């Protein structure tokens, strides 16, 4: 099993990209808000300056051949309404100062422009915004060119501008955070179906090879279709290899039976004890092989029946008795006594009799196999609050290895059994049968004063 090292994260990439876009938009928003607002503030000042100069221009009149001016109160007071800026003005008639600040000079075009002219420059140590309004005033024969200059410092504007900048920064930051939060949410919800499909596949049992049926958006349909076709191929290839094993086991077992019979015949006819011993060894090996082949067949059968599970009423006591009786001849060959302890009560159970028989036979067969000659195997029928418990205790070498439940896995054997031939399938079959019935198998080493050994307990639920 190799673990996948992820190369980047779609969600992270999505969030980073969206955040960068949000950042860019925030900056654009900041620049626009600031620009527009400052332009508006500057325009306000320009408008008031122009209004002031215009109201002065409107107050011009000619008297006795001379241009005169009655400076309107509002002309200057209106400039004080939006800020506390300093105000300067000058009125020139044909280039000569009529009134105001003599040293106030602002750029102005020649002639009589229709529009007020604005300029910004330094005056008396401060930046001022100035407007020039030009008018022609007729007095008797000649026309006088009158220029009105009104200037105002820009402190109020600077204050407004810094306030606007602060506001624009706040708006930009707020926008960025809201947009980032939304993009996090968007990325998460966009990837949610993917996680759902992954979750549905992950939650499956080890032998669940059904097609994935989860509702998924259009983008994920190809992935799920591909996954389902992979599962389909996997399933058929698995079935093929199981079929192959069954076929192989079957083909091996039949000739082995013939070989054994022939070996028996030869064994009886032999005189020399040396040859006899060799032949006996051969027969034993043949037995083991045929047993392994039988277990492979059993395993395939168990798998098949567990997939298509069908139950009927069984008496476990009767089933146990049959099993013990069937294996008694084998036990007797090794001078092993099988002692049955029955704690009484009802042992009715709904299950598959063939599977259960197979399981019990495998446990007992194992016990006999690993028991020393002239020993006891204790078979116990018991029950607790929830389960029937069928346990088999021998006086053999027990299970070895750090993790006892490893013995239940396919082809896994203990670390102390190299001298005994075995397939490693027996307890796997037992475990699968127990699971198929909603029960479980517990394997322990029991310590008995007369000699410890392995104990296998088969639990089946009461209801």
């Amino acid at each position, binding site marked *: 099993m190799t673990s996948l090292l992820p190369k980047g994260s779609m969600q992270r990439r999505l969030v980073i990209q969206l955040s960068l876009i949000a950042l860019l938009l925030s900056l654009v928003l900041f620049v626009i808000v600031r620009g527009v607002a400052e332009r508006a503030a500057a325009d306000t000042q320009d408008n008031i300056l122009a209004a002031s100069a215009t109201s002065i221009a409107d107050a011009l009149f000619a008297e006795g051949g001379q241009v005169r001016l009655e*400076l*309107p109160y509002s002309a*200057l*007071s209106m400039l*004080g309404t939006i800020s*506390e800026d*300093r105000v300067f003005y000058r009125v020139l008639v044909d280039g000569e100062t009529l009134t105001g600040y003599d040293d106030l000079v602002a750029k102005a075009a020649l002639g009589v422009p229709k529009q007020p002219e604005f300029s910004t420059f330094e005056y008396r140590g401060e930046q001022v915004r100035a407007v020039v309004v030009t008018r022609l005033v007729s007095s008797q024969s000649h026309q006088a060119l009158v220029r009105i200059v009104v200037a105002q410092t820009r402190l109020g504007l600077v204050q407004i501008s810094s306030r606007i900048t602060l506001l624009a920064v706040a708006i930009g930051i707020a926008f960025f955070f809201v947009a980032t939060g939304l993009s996090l949410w968007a990325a998460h919800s966009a990837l949610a179906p993917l996680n759902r499909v992954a979750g549905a596949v992950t939650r499956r049992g080890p032998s669940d090879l059904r097609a994935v049926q989860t509702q998924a958006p259009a983008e994920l349909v190809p992935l799920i279709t591909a996954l389902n076709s992979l599962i389909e191929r996997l399933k058929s290839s698995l079935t093929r290899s199981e079929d192959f094993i069954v076929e192989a086991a079957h083909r091996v077992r039949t000739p082995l039976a013939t070989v054994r019979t022939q070996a028996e015949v030869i064994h009886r006819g032999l005189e020399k004890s040396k040859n006899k011993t060799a032949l006996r060894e051969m027969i034993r090996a043949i037995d083991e092989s045929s047993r392994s082949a039988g277990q492979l067949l059993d395993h395939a059968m168990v798998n098949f029946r567990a997939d298509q599970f069908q139950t009927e009423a069984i008496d476990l006591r009767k089933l146990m008795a049959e099993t013990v009786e069937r294996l008694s001849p084998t036990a007797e060959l090794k001078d092993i006594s099988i002692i049955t302890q029955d704690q009484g009560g009802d042992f009715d159970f709904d299950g598959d009799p063939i599977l259960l028989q197979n399981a019990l036979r495998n446990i007992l067969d194992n016990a006999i196999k690993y028991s020393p000659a002239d020993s006891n195997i204790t078979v116990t029928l018991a029950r607790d609050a929830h389960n029937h418990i069928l346990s088999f205790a021998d006086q053999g070498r027990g299970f070895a290895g750090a993790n006892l439940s490893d013995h239940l896995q396919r082809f896994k054997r203990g670390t102390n059994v190299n001298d005994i031939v075995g397939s490693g399938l027996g307890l796997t079959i037992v475990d699968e049968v127990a699971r198929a019935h909603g029960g479980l198998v517990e394997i322990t080493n029991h310590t008995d004063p007369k000699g410890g050994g392995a104990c296998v307990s088969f639990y089946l639920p009461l209801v």
Partner: protein
Amino acid sequence: MRIILFAIGLILVCFNASFAFEIEDHQIYTVPMPTQTIRVISTADIAAFDPLIRRFQSINRRITVDYTVASSTELMAAIYDEGAPFDLVISSAMDLQTKLANDGFAQQYVSPQTARLPAWAQWQDQLFSFTQEPAALVISDAHFAGLEIPKNREQLIDLLRAHPEIFDQRIGTYDVRSSGLGYLFATQDSRNTDSFWRLTEVMGRLNTRLYCCSGAMIDDVYQGRLALAYNVLGSYAENRLAHEPGITIVPMQDYVTVMMRTAFIPRNAQNPDVAGRMIDFLLSKPTQESLAKTTGLPPVFEGASDKQKALRPIRLGPGLLVFLDRLKRKAFLRNWENSIRQE
């Protein structure tokens, strides 16, 4: 007179005889072991300001106060034309103060005390008001016996027209040509009401006497030389009235012009930090709360404005520059002279 000469002598010594503006009074408040000196130029009499200066020195024990009194126009000349090195300028002529600040003769000062001032009582963090003084009509009780007291300017005009025998040569007002405060009050009147010019003409026909200062006008009302004085500083009149009956301050119901005495630190101040301390002192809660009692000047905080409805405070700002425009001023004075001089 000798004191004044002495004071002038002192000033000449102080300023190396290099300044041409006229002063009215001068006093140096010395302290033992002075560390700093603050030069104040003000339009307020020494008598009025004396308690404030002593209080200031009781808090700031090592500061010598050099106090010069000048008329508002001389004060303008001193700062605007001659650049006299004062640390603090205090004046009742709001228009001239505004012009000085607008034209760059003042420097900014910000402190927790100045931050307490409402927006209308300061300008550009340079000009700070510390009093609110209404312009008042003061009448002599003796001359008004049996006459109805006018409630507004229209009634005043009618009254003057109806009784020339009482009021001929017995009306007093500021000579706006020489008094900055008089000019300020008159120009604000001309803005506020159309009847101002009619009133001026009626007063001119009755041979109105022209004064330099409120104090002199109030004196003459007390002594019976005047039946009424128009546009005098109400605070001065109230102070006198508190000690001596015989006059009435008439509350005008059409409007009452309110002047604010302002202070600023000139750009060329030699001890601006001490001047700042003086401004803080003037605006501080204890000073403001006791201002009316110690000096007779109504404080800028919770001053006159709460008692009367028709108050029209003069707004600080560029509007005040309009009547200082040379053409405008010339035209206004010409009109005024034509109205007040009837012969």
